[in-house]
């Protein structure tokens, strides 16, 4: 790196540090004790602030420059270099053992780790499926859905209400939840067929809020903010089991559902339907002009995404045995969207990684107590700045051509 570059970075970092120190001076320096009625001036804090932000800014600028330089090199070569992560997932020699190890580890997990850990992992798995579901709508079909959590709520309340009123069991409601999800997906899909981009985002955002507000205020139907308690856990052929065993049981159910979802989304991605979704995302007019029924493709994407969310809602209700509208706020939608974007839009592996990262990171950062969300936010920013396509860049399939036609 050239010397003048370093000099420029130092200068910019210095300016940033001075500016930040100046801005934060009142809160960092002055401390008013209202009981003793004294004011302490902690001038040293100003120095810490300036030094800390100077170092951070310097590292940041240098990293940004390295990133841009890397990008320029790639452009010259004409093809994009894969991240080490993506290459690891693509190497066939590594994939099989990795999958086998992952599977064994996943099956053994509840026997090795505590119930607490298993519970966390179940939550993470739920978000894996939610992420993969939203990945169909947003990542593949390019329909920005900010109200995705509504379908999660639909599933949860489908099970909660049917269980409360009619005593229906988990396994009976699971398929019904899927159907309800698909139905609500279409319900949202029809009115927004002509919208896209920002407009679509706003309407779906509204849809999510409507569902939550209805659940909160229509007390006769949904029991309002107090929610529904004592929902049955999944039945196991009538065999009674303890709370600990329930966690393990639900964990295995989730493991099955996750594998099913991965299978389904991976197959769809490189199918006639998946290609139509991608074309829809890339250029709606060209897509339609090439004979693809946009309406059908959109409705399918909405319905399928919603089905998966609704399934997870049913599992969620059975896992916590309690649902109320507070679990289905916009924050959840934003979180699931973050999983998709951070993981890599359209990439199945990426979304799975994203879900684990975003769900487990805050959990294990509890040690940092009040700085937890700050660190979490910082991590997200760093990933998005340095890996704008997400952890794993979605790749298209390389097709084999039949020898006879190619010859």
């Amino acid at each position, binding site marked *: 790196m050239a010397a003048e570059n370093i000099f420029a970075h130092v200068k910019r970092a210095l300016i940033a540090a001075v500016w930040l120190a100046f801005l934060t001076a009142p809160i960092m320096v002055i401390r008013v004790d209202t009981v003793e009625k004294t004011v302490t001036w902690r001038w040293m804090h100003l120095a810490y602030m300036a030094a800390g932000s100077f170092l951070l800014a310097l590292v940041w600028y240098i990293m940004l420059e390295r990133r841009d330089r890397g990008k320029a090199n790639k452009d010259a070569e004409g093809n994009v270099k894969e991240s080490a992560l993506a290459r690891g997932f693509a190497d066939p020699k590594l994939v099989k053992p990795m999958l086998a190890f992952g599977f064994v580890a996943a099956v053994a997990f509840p026997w090795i780790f505590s119930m607490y850990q298993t519970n966390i992992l179940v939550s993470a798995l739920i978000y894996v499926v939610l992420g993969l579901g939203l990945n169909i709508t947003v990542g593949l079909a390019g329909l920005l859905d900010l109200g995705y959590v509504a379908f999660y709520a639909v599933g949860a309340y489908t099970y909660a209400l049917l269980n409360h009123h009619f005593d229906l069991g988990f396994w009976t409601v699971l398929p019904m939840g899927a159907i309800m999800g698909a139905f609500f997906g279409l319900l949202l899909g029809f009115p927004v067929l002509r919208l896209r981009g920002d407009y679509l985002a706003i309407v779906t955002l509204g849809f999510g809020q409507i569902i939550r507000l209805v659940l909160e205020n229509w007390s006769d139907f949904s029991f309002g903010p107090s929610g529904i308690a004592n929902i049955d856990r999944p039945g196991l052929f009538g065999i009674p089991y303890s709370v600990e065993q329930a966690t393990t049981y639900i964990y295995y159910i989730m493991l099955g559902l996750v594998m099913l979802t991965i299978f389904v989304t991976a197959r769809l991605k490189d199918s006639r*339907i998946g290609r139509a979704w991608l074309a829809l995302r890339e250029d709606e007019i060209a*897509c339609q002009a090439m004979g693809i029924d946009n309406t059908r493709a959109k409705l399918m994407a909405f319905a399928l995404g919603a089905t998966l969310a609704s399934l997870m809602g049913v599992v969620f209700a059975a896992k916590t045995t309690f649902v109320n509208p507070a679990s289905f706020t916009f924050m959840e939608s934003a979180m699931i969207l973050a999983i998709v974007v951070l993981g890599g839009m359209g990439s199945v592996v990426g979304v799975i990684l994203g879900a684990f990262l975003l769900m487990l990171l805050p959990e294990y950062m509890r040690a940092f107590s009040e700085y937890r969300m700050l660190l979490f936010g910082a991590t997200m920013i760093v990933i998005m700045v340095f890996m704008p396509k997400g952890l794993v860049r979605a790749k298209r399939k390389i097709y084999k051509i039949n020898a006879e036609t190619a010859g």
Partner: protein
Amino acid sequence: MAQTDTAQAPDGAVLSVHNMSMNFGGLRALSEVDLEVRQGEVVALIGPNGAGKTTFFNCITGIYTPSEGDVFAYPRSGKKRRVNGMRTNLVCELGMARTFQNIRLFPSMTALENVMIGRHCRTKTGILGAILRGPGTRREEQMVVDSSYELLKKVGLEKMANEYSRNLPYGAQRRLEIARALATEPFLLLLDEPAAGMNPQETLELKEMVIRIREEFKVSVLLIEHDMKMVMSLSDRIYVMEYGRVISTGTPKEVGEDPQVIRAYLGEESDA
């Protein structure tokens, strides 16, 4: 309602447009346009910038609904169909496939996949089929791959089959758009300025390609083009458009000698 009768068009037309007009608010982009393309013909639509050529394409492919007039298509099935206001994807399914003036490929799909999209309306794997991937689905999928690859070979892009279409050179992107349109098995190919941005050599190759495609796929071609050399040597008939009206029509020779056309292109002395 769409199929008014089953008779073939009397003079072998595959597309006939009568009295078509298109208004955008107060702006009359097309007025009373009559145009006909017959089986196996290459017809050119020319005219100065803003004459309404692209608007004409948009009107006959369902992207806009014409304000007045009739558009009839005579697909291979032989049934006369009224195309006005038909949905864009159904027009394509009927057999009228187009390319775009400002290339509209699917940038983060490979060249092969772009062509495979064209096969969409001729195949039928549904969600369930795609998930289960039974023998029928696999066979169909392989057929889509093979036939798309064949088409890439026809336009000379087989070496770039697995490249992202955004990474292809400009001329290759134009040819890829043609391959994608051909994949929908059209009876009429609509090309909007296919030679735009190409050098003379590429333009010449394109011309030969269009001739080959017409023979091999038995398609009729309607093309918008500004390159006069190409238009004059390629087309059987030419329509000249100015301010949304057809001001002249005939063989290249007739049109080239029409004083109206010369005026439209060179401008009148008195106007200057």
